[in-house]
């Protein structure tokens, strides 16, 4: 099945821009992975900056970490395709990111619990003790 498209491609000698785009869309490459990762990252950052609910902010932070993971895995795949013997390092990195994210989520939610017990609120704009 894969070879079908490849042969189609090979039959075409010249490529226009639209063709390039079509090929890019049909054959997503490393850059597409990275784009998706960047978009997820930005969505996560926007969530951190805009939401009032502290739990949602945490979830946005998980989005960010996830996007970073995606980047790692994408590069690992790319490098293994390129023949780099250390390509598996990306996946190792991703493992540890997941570990850290889990630990961080646990601690952070513990803090949220403690904060909620003291201030009875989960809205971050009400937690402004450091305000001048």
């Amino acid at each position, binding site marked *: 099945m894969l070879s079908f498209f490849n042969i189609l491609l090979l039959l075409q000698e010249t490529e226009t821009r639209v063709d390039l785009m079509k090929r890019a869309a049909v054959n997503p490459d490393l850059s597409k992975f990275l784009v998706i990762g960047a978009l997820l990252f930005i969505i996560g*950052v926007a969530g*951190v*900056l*805009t939401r009032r609910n502290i739990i949602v*902010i945490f979830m946005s932070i998980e989005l960010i970490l996830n996007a970073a993971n995606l980047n790692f895995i994408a590069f690992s795949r790319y490098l293994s395709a390129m023949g780099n013997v250390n390509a598996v390092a990306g996946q190792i990195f991703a493992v540890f990111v997941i570990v850290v994210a889990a630990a961080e989520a646990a601690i952070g939610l513990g803090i949220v619990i403690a904060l909620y017990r003291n201030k009875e609120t989960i809205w*971050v*704009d009400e*937690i*402004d*003790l*450091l*305000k*001048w």
Partner: protein
Amino acid sequence: MQKYIWLVPLLPLIGAAINGLLGRKLRFSEQIIGGIAVGSVALAFLISVAAVYSYGFGGHAEWPNPYLTSQDGFSFNWIPGGAVSVNHGAQYALLNIEWSYQLDPLSSIFMLIVTGVGLCIFIFATGYMHGEAGFYRFFAYMGMFMFAMLVLVMGSNFLMMFVGWEGVGLCSYLLIGYYFDRQEAANASRKAFITNRVGDFGFALAIFGIIATFGSAQYVNVFDQAKSYPIELIGHWGVLSWIALGLFIGACGKSAQLPLHVWLPDAMAGPTPVSALIHAATMVTAGLYMVTRTNVIFQHSQTMMLVVALIGAATAIFAATIGITQNDIKKVLAYSTVSQLGFMFMACGVGAFAIGIFHVMTHAFFKALMFLGAGSVIHGMHHEQDMRRMGGLKKYMPYTYWTFMAGWLAICGVIPFSGFWSKDEILWNAASTTHIPLGWIVWLVGTIAATCTAFYMTRLMAMTFWGRERFLEAPAGGEADEAHASAYDKGLTQHDATFASAGDRPRHEPGEHVGPVHEDISHHVGTHGHGGHHGAHIPHESPASMWVPLAVLAILATVGGLVGIGPAFRTLTGTQHPGGRLNIVTWLNPIIWNPVTREFNTPEGAHEATAPVETAHAETAAPPIAEGAAEAEHGSAAAVYGDTGFNLAHAVEGSTHSELATEWIFIIISLVVAGIGMLLGGLFYVWRPALADVWSQRLRPLYVASYNKYWVDEFYGLTVTRRTMDLARAVFSFDSRFVDGIVNGLASLSRLFSRIVGGFDKYFVDGLVNTVAAFIMRLMSPLFRAAQTGFTQNYALVMVIGLMVAVAVFFARDILAVFGR
């Protein structure tokens, strides 16, 4: 023994220091204080006697050469003065003033007088000042005075003389003002000091002139050089006349000659021993000492000799006429002193310097005697000084009376008492002088003054010792001290104390009546306001400590003149000046400069020595001598001083043709006038007492003028004193308005300037600071504070912005390329 003359001034000084510094602190008793004082003076006297004896009569007698202590290695370079330019000879001279004592004929006489008469007075004072709280202070000052006087007469240079001069002036001030709580005493001491100071000004100028001219202040150097200067006759006024003028002004101040005599009568406000020692025997004779010491300089200036003689004569008659009308016994004696000092200056002025010193000596004896006698009278009369309240004291105070009589006869010039010899020689030398013209006027004035002297001294004797006992009728003032004596003069018959007496003298309370309460005393024995021992004071004789010195001085006043038996008695004595070195004229000869030989006289005697000189003159066809060869001493001077006009002695001799007869005529004249004076005194005050008032009425203007001392004090007050105070007030107002105005103006300027600077600081500088602070506080602070929202997502946003900036920086090149395209 001469080596130890430096002890002579030192011993009284040590005694004074002990008494002054420790007398009060250690509460010495009167015996100890008196013992220290008298002992120190007695020791000084003994050393002086021994030194003078060994100097003049001993084995290795150095007379006639002066002996300086620096010869024996006691030299002390007091002022290393360095080079001073002189206006003759060498361009520069080394002016190193040394502190050394000189023992020579003149200073030896003064040493003996000062210590000897001083010793008598000290002993008297221990009795007179008994009971005073300031006993120690009195003897401290007296010791200081002795020291200063001895430095004056024993010094070997003019600066030491000046030191002693000032020192005796100071001690005179201290002692006149001894009763410092009395206004009269304070005024009198100030007057004495200031008048002295006027004279000292002239003296100081003369010393400057001496140093500038001769390049040295040592006597031996100065006189050695002065010998060779040309003589300045009348009409020629040279440098030596200037120096002599300055010296004489000093002498006028110190010895109370005519324009500067005003202090001496007021100085009677001090205690009587002070009056005796300072204002009779010693301090006032310092002027004579100075004139005789510098006789070289004076004899070089005929004008100054004339001035000296005339002022001396004027003073003599002036003071004598005032003394006739005074009622305070001490004032009479004071004016008598002034008059006799005039006599001494007369002697110096006519060239008889040795006779002047002789009169100093005899005057010291009889005047000190009379002052101490007056003190004894005052003491016995319980401090009554007005002679109108005395009388008939002869039988109450016999010792005082007989010793006083010796003094009276001496001052009147009765042969053979001491005063006769000296006064007669003065008058003879005045009549026969060839140094100056107008000698006959000097003689005439002197004779009249001698008459007045005899008159008022007899008056004093009569009012005090003879006649009716007036003190029984009008009780004596009692407890009136010398300072209140002037109250009598002002006509206050009774005087009230104005102030309470100071601690030193427990006597009066303010308002306490001091004086006779009632005319009738018989009911009021012992009921006076204070002490209870007034009423009819029966005078009593003084204790032994007081009349024994009187006796000693009386003996001296009687026989003391025999050292100067004059040449008129050469038929009896065989020589012109009998006694060899003991004769005062012979003794003093080496320090007298002879204008004929232009050298100091040699010890064989000027008069004998002038014989060969005189022949030398005849041989060398000297300028014609107006009189014959018998005029040895005086005629020779005529060769130097030119024609001096009418010469009384020569005129008389012209008719008698014998010098001896001439001399005896003058002796007879002076004895006769003395007798006339005494007889008149006895007439007016013993046999016909009413005549005194009659004649004082008839000669009213003269009497008033004399009684008011010719208004000299008032004149000085008007012209000098008040004008000086006006000047002081003017200067003060100038200073307080102008000078202080400038200072205050500067202060105002400073204040104004400081206000400006302060305003600048306040508005400009502080404004700057405040602006900066406000900028930070009001503008920047809220701005930065706004960043601390406490809102975590704001911080996260900032982080994102930073991340974005980092990315942009990473792609800066490309971004710029985008825009650059």
